[in-house]
């Protein structure tokens, strides 16, 4: 992400509040299920709450790509995202077959997004280095 471009600054202005909502909702959901016997539609709503800010972050990433006018910076991010997608699909595919045949512990599917973010973040310096 290029934090000095107007699009980069707008990205941060959207990303930070979304992450604050995420932290609050994940603590809220954890305590909610610990303290109360949540069932039915309420349980569904509380369980989905932490997912909503993550959906917002996915949209916020999309908006950044749409709004970034520096084509090289956009290109670096898109390439990094492709690495992120590839690595996430590779890990979840291998893990899935291990789970199926040799019964390794299950990987909860919410991990897909953090794995994607980590892989994209790790890929970025390597993508940048190719253009130096």
């Amino acid at each position, binding site marked *: 992400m290029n934090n000095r471009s107007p699009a980069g600054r707008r990205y941060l202005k959207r990303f930070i509040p979304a992450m604050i909502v995420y932290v609050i909702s994940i603590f809220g959901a954890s305590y909610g299920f610990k303290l109360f016997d949540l069932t039915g539609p309420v349980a569904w709503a509380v369980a989905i709450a932490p997912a909503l800010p993550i959906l917002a972050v996915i949209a916020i990433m999309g908006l950044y790509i749409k709004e970034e006018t520096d*084509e090289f*910076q956009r290109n670096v991010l898109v390439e990094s995202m492709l690495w992120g997608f590839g690595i996430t699909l590779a890990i979840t595919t291998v893990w899935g077959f291990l789970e199926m045949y040799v019964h390794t512990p299950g990987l909860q599917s919410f991990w897909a997004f953090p794995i994607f973010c980590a892989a994209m973040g790790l890929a970025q310096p390597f993508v940048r280095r*190719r*253009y*130096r």
Partner: protein
Amino acid sequence: MKNRLKVLRAERDWSQADLADRLEVSRQTINALETGKYDPSLPLAFKIARLFGQPIEAIFDDGEA
């Protein structure tokens, strides 16, 4: 793609940051263009050509001609 950006920039005594400001891109973008590792889009190539007052093919060389 090979290009004469570095020469044209030096002739005007501009730093990479100066050229970046004039093209409304980041300094890393100028660097990637100058090393020839990143080829600009057609709109950015036109913007560069206009800034230096030269045709695109006088600045960028695709090695075909």
